[in-house]
């Protein structure tokens, strides 16, 4: 006979403010098999857990029900509590009376209490059928995959490698560096972006534990934590390993059709190119969509000029398949495309540029060597209008979130402009200034007070092109006046959005993403770098917009998580897996056909003395416990530990029975 203890948590007033917890505990006490039922302010606290441990000892309990918050929050906590008191950790069930009751039924305390009683009763019904399960272990491939070679990926790779583990760093572009490499200076210190990034890029390239794989993409993922199997496409570079990076090919290449991605399409680039001079690795690739040879069959100049014979036009995309124990996803962001902002000219006005384009213009490595000129006629500029919140905080454009860095980078850009051209005037249209961060507010104040940047609180309603100028019409809501500024250049503070294809990429790992496509962390506060997929971590702006220090911190956090995982000898895995009762198995192979992990094996086996039958068997180390086999088996021969038919049926039975509360 089961000896069940029921522990009802108040969660301060979170639960107790809505649910009559003493009534829930009293009702629990009336249920068959329940030996003790108590309520307590915070069950998860130390004294709370000790209450449970004491009760286990005093009443000789062998299973527990904790009526508290979501099992996703504290199931692990109470399983450990049970274990400490000598009970099998899988003899614990939680009734979620916080997220599923108190917080959602606060409008009727009586109904909420009744539901809490019912959910508790269902958990009691389930735990009555629980079975002791023993822990299982799986091997760990102590090698990490870092996807994305921006500052987040580089930092994560360096940290993991620093701890002595091997890392494969995969980057889609020909060079690592990412967005940060495109920036001129960084706020709030105004130090040169390249100066602080380049050493890290080089360090990554030189670290013996890091393997760089640029111009490559992840195409397929299977497996699970400790044992991910990842297929990676190495795109054909058309340049082989003999390349010494002398750059002659790029200089001599006659093609000028393509626009430089690195320079945000402000300048042409060659068909054979390295994205920027400091690229790592310093090996060019041929853009086959722009190369004269690939387009017309004639040219081959690069091949002729290459001193080492590194050009290989016959190279093919290559696929490799490798195993990793953990994955850091740092795939970065795109900036919002403002072409659906009618008021800013639908992206058709040449001299309305993005913030990132401005970075390239003002960067000494940029297409204009740091001279801020108008893209349309290359004239120098005098009046520059900056507009904030483009594709941020805009419900109408389905971008209601704040991109967090635009206020800061606008201030920085306005200051840089003034530094370069003291005679220019910068205007900033803003909604609010968000400058939370160390030395951030001071930085914005400097822009206004020392650099004379004119901040106008309001939105721009229209930009007209008139007589080689841009007429910017807007409202200054502080003075209440309509303003019109004759500008030479308009710089938009485009917000961040998920990288194109982010959702498809998420599906490779079965990560969830939010409605915009930013990847979901496991918990917004307590697990900000983990994902719902164990062993997959997220860093940087693929999770949400953030600045460089936050990105670096997050990257290092993922590295810490990966290292903590790799430090273990073996991986403890949940024993909640499927099992086949071969006596009742009819050998129809339905389970074998539906298993997503190929964790079912069909065997001819002697199931009874003298009776050999074709039956299914679960490969325990491969099964992930999804239960697809259970849902499909009509012989009812497969069951899922922790979610057995008996448990579910008893929950159903209890859910539909009336409350017998007296």
């Amino acid at each position: 006979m089961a000896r069940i203890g029921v522990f009802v948590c108040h969660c301060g007033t979170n639960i107790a403010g809505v649910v009559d917890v003493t009534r829930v505990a009293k009702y629990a006490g009336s249920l068959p098999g329940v030996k003790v039922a108590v309520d307590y302010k915070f069950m998860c606290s130390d004294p709370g857990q000790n209450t449970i441990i004491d009760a286990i000892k005093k009443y000789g309990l062998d299973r527990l029900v904790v009526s508290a918050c979501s099992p996703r929050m504290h199931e692990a906590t109470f399983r450990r509590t049970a274990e400490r008191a000598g009970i099998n950790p899988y003899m614990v069930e939680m009734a979620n009376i916080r997220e599923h009751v108190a917080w959602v039924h606060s409008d009727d305390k009586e109904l909420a209490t009744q539901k809490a009683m019912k959910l508790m009763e269902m958990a009691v019904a389930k735990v009555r059928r629980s079975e002791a399960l023993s822990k299982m272990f799986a091997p760990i491939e102590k090698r990490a995959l870092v996807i994305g070679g921006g500052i987040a990926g580089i930092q994560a790779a360096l940290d993991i490698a620093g701890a002595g583990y091997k890392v494969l760093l995969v980057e889609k572009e020909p060079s690592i560096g990412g967005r940060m490499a495109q920036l001129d200076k960084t706020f709030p210190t105004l130090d040169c972006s390249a100066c602080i990034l380049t050493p890290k890029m080089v360090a990554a390239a030189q670290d013996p534990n890091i393997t760089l794989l640029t111009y490559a993409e992840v195409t397929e993922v299977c497996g699970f934590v400790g044992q991910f199997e990842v297929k990676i496409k190495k795109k054909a570079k058309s340049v082989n390993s003999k390349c010494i990076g002398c750059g002659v090919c790029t200089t001599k290449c006659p093609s000028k059709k393509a626009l430089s991605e690195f320079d945000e399409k402000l300048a042409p680039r060659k068909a054979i190119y390295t994205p920027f001079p400091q690229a790592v690795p310093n090996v060019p690739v041929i853009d086959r969509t722009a190369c004269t040879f690939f387009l017309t069959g004639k040219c081959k100049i690069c091949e002729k000029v290459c001193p080492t014979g590194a050009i290989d036009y016959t190279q093919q995309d290559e696929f490799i398949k490798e195993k990793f124990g953990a994955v850091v996803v740092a795939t970065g962001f795109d900036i919002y495309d403002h072409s659906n902002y009618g008021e800013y000219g639908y992206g058709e006005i040449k001299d309305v540029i993005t913030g990132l384009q401005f970075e390239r213009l003002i960067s000494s490595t940029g297409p204009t060597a740091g001279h801020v000129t108008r893209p349309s006629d290359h004239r120098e500029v005098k009046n520059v209008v900056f507009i904030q919140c483009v594709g941020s905080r805009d419900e109408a454009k389905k971008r209601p979130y704040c991109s967090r860095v635009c206020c800061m980078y606008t201030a920085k850009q306005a200051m840089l402009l003034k530094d370069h051209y003291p005679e220019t005037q910068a205007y900033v249209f803003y909604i609010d200034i968000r400058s939370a961060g160390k030395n951030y507010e001071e930085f914005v104040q400097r822009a206004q007070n020392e650099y004379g940047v004119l901040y106008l609180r309001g939105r721009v309603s229209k930009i007209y092109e008139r007589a080689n100028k841009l007429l910017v019409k807007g409202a200054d809501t502080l003075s209440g006046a309509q303003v019109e500024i004759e500008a030479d250049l308009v710089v938009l503070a485009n917000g961040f959005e998920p990288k194109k294809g982010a959702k498809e990429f998420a599906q490779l790992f079965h990560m969830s993403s939010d409605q915009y496509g930013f990847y979901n962390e496991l918990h917004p506060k307590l697990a900000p770098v983990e994902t719902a997929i164990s062993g997959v971590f997220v860093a940087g702006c693929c999770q949400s917009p953030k600045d460089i220090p936050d990105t670096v911190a997050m990257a290092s956090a993922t590295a810490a998580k990966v290292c903590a995982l790799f430090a273990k000898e073996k991986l403890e895995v949940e024993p909640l897996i499927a099992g086949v009762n071969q006596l009742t198995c009819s050998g129809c192979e339905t389970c074998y056909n539906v298993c997503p992990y190929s964790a079912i094996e069909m065997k001819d086996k002697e199931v009874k003395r003298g009776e050999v039958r074709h039956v299914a068997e679960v490969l325990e180390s491969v099964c992930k416990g999804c239960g697809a086999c259970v849902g499909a088996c009509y012989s009812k021969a497969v069951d899922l530990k922790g979610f057995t038919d008996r448990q579910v049926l008893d929950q159903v039975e209890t859910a539909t029975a009336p409350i017998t509360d007296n």
Partner: protein
Amino acid sequence: MDNKVPQLNIVGFLCNWCSYAGADMTGLGRNTYPSNIKVIRIPCTGRMDPMMIIEAFHNGADGVLVSGCHPGDCHYTEGNYYWRRRYPHLKSLLEHFGIDKRRFHASWVSASEGKKFAEVVKKVTAEVKDWRDNG
């Protein structure tokens, strides 16, 4: 709709990874919904044996909701695709046996769709109530 619908029993089967987490999110966002639904956590909609739903109706459930990850988002890759096939078949079979269409529903609710979960529960409760009140 009114969140108070007495004497109506709805059993909800939610997958652990998306919909259960989504329902948690409903709580975090303090969105309210009718309290008739009693949730049973399952690992995946692929685990959803149609027998369990038949048993629920047999035991006197007025309505059943099964909710899982959006197609393509299944934590276990394919479970919800199998469910997406079982659902129309089962719904049609149940209706043939006289279990009204309004009593059996399915939804996709992701871990971030707390608001959607509340909407789904409201809609399901309203449909079941409509069945009970209007036959």
